[in-house]
């Protein structure tokens, strides 16, 4: 047999969902191993300098960057083993996870697995979009909030959702000139409170506009903006040139679902949740027994919801391993579902609620990766 170790619960990804899942499952007595490709815990939290909303359960009032330490300390006390610099490469039909760590090929066979792999940034393709200076919004946040480096002195923001608005504000705080925020849709997708804040600071938000070209030889020196018609095509004659050193794309996220496809989970196409997501029950168990999912990988949402989902998945795992009696399990589950419902209430949660409803009637799709199949 090839070198392999076993454990009760493996959590892939040590972001808000993964850390919460590990903490919940370990507190109830499960043996948990967390794999994360980064050098430390936190995932996207390490760049979220803003204070969180929600309730105490989601660390409301605490800055995102301070949450990983709190969760990690508690998880370590509960005996969670965290393996950093571990890049997961695949999940196989016999329940084995392979990963790369310190230039070694490792295998782990958990009894339960929770995929908290997060999401990847969407990209736009236009002439010049491969020039240095075209960034995803996540990359800009990493540069500024983790490394203290400005992406440029003048930045064009593409996308007026919450990420586009918040990153614009962080750029302004760092002394960067945000030349404009362009948004292809009719409306600003983000919260009005964020939009007003950047507008007050003099940043124009141009709806029904997009970027059609990045200019420059070695790096971005400017961009062409154009208005869009009813068919979402650029209108000739509306070209505007803006001078900028960087273009920041905040045009949405795709759940990172490779591992779920490989596990043979039934997936559903739900645009409200970001694309293909696994079909889950209330414990966030997928259609494959023992395979759970939490956070953006199960549908793109806020980090606060990701933490509650992680808790639910961790609880579900512990329950399936007989580590929690049924009464306590039901009570805790109610608590967590209540927290999640509160986070998803109101007009801002409408899209998520719609997406979750759509999951109930979704047409599942499944890939089978076994010997002898044509895959």
């Amino acid at each position, binding site marked *: 047999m*090839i070198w392999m170790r076993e454990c009760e619960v493996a959590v892939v990804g040590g972001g808000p969902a993964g850390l919460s899942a590990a903490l919940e499952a370990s507190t109830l007595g499960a043996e948990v191993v967390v794999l994360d490709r980064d050098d430390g815990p936190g995932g996207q939290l390490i760049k979220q300098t803003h204070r969180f909303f929600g309730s105490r359960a989601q660390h409301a009032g605490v800055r995102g960057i301070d949450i990983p330490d709190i969760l990690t300390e508690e998880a370590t006390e509960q005996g969670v083993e965290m393996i950093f610099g571990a*890049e997961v490469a695949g999940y196989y039909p016999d329940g084995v996870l392979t990963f790369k760590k310190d230039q*070694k*090929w*490792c295998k782990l066979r958990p009894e339960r697995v929770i995929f908290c792999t997060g999401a990847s940034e969407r990209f736009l393709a236009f*002439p010049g979009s491969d020039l240095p200076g075209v960034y995803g919004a996540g990359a800009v946040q990493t540069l500024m909030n983790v490394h203290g480096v400005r992406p440029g002195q003048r930045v064009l923001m593409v996308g007026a959702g919450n990420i586009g608005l918040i990153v614009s504000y962080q750029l302004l705080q760092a002394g960067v000139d945000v030349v404009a925020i362009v948004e292809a849709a009719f409306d600003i997708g983000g919260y009005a409170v964020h939009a007003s804040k950047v507008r007050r600071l003099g940043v124009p938000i141009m709806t029904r506009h997009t970027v059609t070209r990045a200019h420059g030889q070695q790096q971005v020196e400017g961009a062409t903006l154009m208005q869009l018609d009813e068919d979402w095509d650029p209108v000739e004659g509306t070209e505007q040139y803006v001078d900028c050193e960087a273009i920041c794309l905040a045009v949405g996220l795709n759940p990172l679902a490779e591992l779920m496809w490989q596990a043979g989970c039934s997936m559903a196409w739900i645009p409200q949740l970001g694309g293909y997501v696994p079909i889950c029950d209330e414990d966030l168990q997928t259609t494959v027994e023992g395979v759970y999912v939490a956070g953006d990988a199960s549908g793109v949402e806020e980090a606060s919801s990701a933490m509650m989902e992680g808790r639910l998945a961790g609880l579900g795992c512990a329950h399936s391993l007989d580590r929690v009696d049924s009464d306590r399990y039901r009570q805790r589950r109610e608590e967590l579902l209540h927290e999640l419902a509160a986070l998803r209430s109101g007009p801002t949660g409408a899209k998520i609620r719609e997406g979750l409803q759509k999951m109930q009637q979704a047409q599942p799709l499944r890939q089978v990766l076994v010997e002898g199949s044509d895959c």
Partner: protein
Amino acid sequence: MNEEEIIICRCEDITLADIRCMLQAGVDDVEEMKRLLRCGMGPCQGRTCRPLIMQEVASHRGVDLEDMKVPVFRPPFIPVKLGLLAEAYERRGEQDNGQTS
């Protein structure tokens, strides 16, 4: 708009012109296109270009993204040196000492 200037798959340097050329030639299946062009087979394994290619093929065929066949996600989906696998094979049979490194 010059299609040759638009890079769709950055890992493998595939332009929009390359993709549309395939579509013109009747290759309108993402899996088939992947085999012919190597788009989505570089270090990022299609995380950036897959949605762009799916969108392009869907609009060429006049179908919704929802009705598109999804390319298969084979492991490993990160770059792995063959030496690493060979070294793991050499280590086979070793007892698990609880260490991962």
